C-alpha cells in the first residue's frame, strides 16, 4: 500500500502541475467549453463503476454501480456533445471578411 500511495501522489502532483500550466494558457473565450470538457473527462470515474457492476459482488454494490454508470455516462455523452456544439460556434471574422 505504501508504494502505491507514493506512486499515486507522484502522479497526482505531476498531473496537477501539468493541469495548472496547460489550463493557464486557455483563452478566457473558451472557459465555458473548458468546464464542460473537463466535466466529461472527469466522468472517467465510470471505469470504477463498470468494474463494480461487472464483478457483481453484492446486490447493493451492483445497484449503486449501475446508477453510477448512468450518471457518469450521461456526463461523458452530454459533456462532449455540448463542448463540440459550443466550440463549433466560435468563428473568426478574418477569413470571411472581404
Amino acid at each position, binding site marked *: *500500500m505504501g508504494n502505491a500511495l507514493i*506512486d*499515486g501522489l507522484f*502522479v*497526482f502532483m505531476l498531473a496537477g502541475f*501539468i*493541469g495548472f500550466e*496547460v*489550463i493557464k494558457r486557455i*483563452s*478566457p473565450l*473558451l*472557459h465555458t*467549453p*473548458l*468546464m*464542460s*470538457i*473537463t*466535466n466529461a*473527462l*472527469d*466522468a*472517467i*470515474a*465510470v*471505469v470504477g463503476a*463498470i*468494474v*463494480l*457492476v*461487472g*464483478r457483481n*459482488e453484492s446486490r447493493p*454494490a*451492483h445497484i*449503486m*454501480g449501475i*446508477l*453510477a*454508470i448512468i*450518471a*457518469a*455516462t450521461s*456526463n*461523458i*455523452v452530454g*459533456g*462532449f*456533445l*455540448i*463542448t463540440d*456544439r*459550443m466550440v463549433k*460556434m*466560435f*468563428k*473568426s*471574422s478574418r477569413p*470571411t471578411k472581404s
Partner: protein
Amino acid sequence: MTTFFGSPAFIGIIYLIASALFILALKWMNAPPTARRGILAGEIGMVLAIGGTILQLGVEGKLEHISIDYTWIFIALGIGTAIGVPLGLVQMTAVPQRTALSHAFGAFCVTLVGTAEYYLGTSTIPAFKMSVLCVEVILGGLTVTGSLMAAGKLQEVLPQRPITYKGQNFVNLALLASTAVIAIYLVHNPGATHLYPVMVGIALIVGVMLVIPIGGADMPTVISLLNSYAGLSAAAMGFVLNNKLLIVAGALDGSSGFILSVIMSKAMNRSFTNVVFGAFGQVAASAAGAQEARPVKSASPEEAAGILAAASRVVVVPGYGMAVAQAQHKVRELYDALTKRGVDVRFAIHPVAGRMPGHMNVLLAEADVPYDRLIEMDDINGDFPQTDVSLIIGANDVTNPAAKTDKSSPIYGMPVLDVEKSHTVMVIKRSMNPGFAGIDNPLYYMDQTLMLFGDAKVFVGNIVKELTHS
C-alpha cells in the same frame, strides 16, 4: 498474445495513452482553431479507457472463474447515453445550470462508487484507503447537493436571493468539522458501519448549506469551486481504486476548477473564503436608497441609432441581463448593421459577466459574433478614452465606477470596465430600480450617460430597425 490482452500491463498502457490524450485534449482547448481536435482526443481517450476496462474485466473474470455481468454494464451505458444526449443539446442560455447539474452527476457517481467500495470492504479496509475514501465521499457528497442547489437557483426553481441567518458560518464550520471527526474515527475503526451514513448525510447537508447564502452574482465562482471539488473527489477515488488514469483526470479537473475560481474571485476582488462564507446581497441593500431621484438623461431608439451611426468606434458591454432578455441575436444584428456602416464594433467581456466563466463569449458566439471581436477586460480597458460610444446591455456592477473611487461601496476594489472614459455611454435598462445586488451605479447620473429604458431585446431591435431603414 492472449496473456497480454487484459493483463495489468495491457490496461496500464491503455490508461497511459488515455492520460496523454486527456492532457492533449486540454492543451488543444487553448484556442478556437484547435479546440475541436482537443475534443476528439478526449473522446478517443475515453473510448479506449472504457473499452480497455471492459476487456480486462472479461479476462479477469475468466482467470478468477467469476461470471461478468455485461448485460447491466451495457444497459447502464445505454441509459446514461439516453440521458446525456438531451443534456448535450440544451440551449446555450441554459448552459450554467446544465454545467452545475453535470457536476452533481459526476460527484454522484464518485460518491456511489466510494460507498459501494466501503460496504464491500468495511472492517478490512486499510487506514490509508479508508482516509482517501472518506475524502472522496465527503467532497463528492457536498458537491452533489451543492451543485443541485446551484442548478436549482440558476434554473430559478429555487429562490435566487442569498438566504442568510445569524451564526451561518459557525453552523457550516461545525458541520464540516463533524464530518472530519467521523472520518478520523472511521479510519481507525472502519467496521463502524452505522457511522458511515451519518458522515455522508452530513456532507450532503453541508453542500446545501454552502450554496444557500450564494447570490446570482457569485455563481461563476461557486460553479468553478464545485468543479474543483468534483475533480478532487474523482482523484481521491483514483487513490482508493489505485487507478492512475482517474488520479490524472481528477487532478486536471481539480486544477481547472481551481484556476477558474481564482480568476473569478480576483475579478470580484474577493477571497475564496469571502465568496463561500459571506453573502453579497445583504450588505448592498443598505447602500441603495440614500440617493434617489437624481436626474438622468434618457434617449429614444431613434436618438440612440443616430449617435451609434455617427460613431467610428463602439464598444458593447454585455451582461447577464442580455442573457435574460435573450437579446444576443438582436445584438448581433446591431453589430452587422453598424459594421456595414463602417463602424468598428467590439465587445468588452468582464470575467464575471453572466453566471459562469466564459458565459458571454458562448452566447455571443452562438449568435455568430466573430470571436476576435470579443475582447477581455484587461485588453480593452485602455481603449475606452478613444471610444465614441459604450453601449451597456444588461450589465451593471462590472461598469460601476464607484468600485474605483468609493471606499464605502460594497464592490470597492473590484476591477471594472472603464466605460465612463468613453465620449458617450448608453445604458439599456428596464428602469432605474437598482439591480440584483442593489448597488447604486453613479455612472447613470454622469453627463455623458444616456439611459435607454426598455427591454434589451426590443430596444436593440428598434435601434437596428432605425439603422437599416435610414
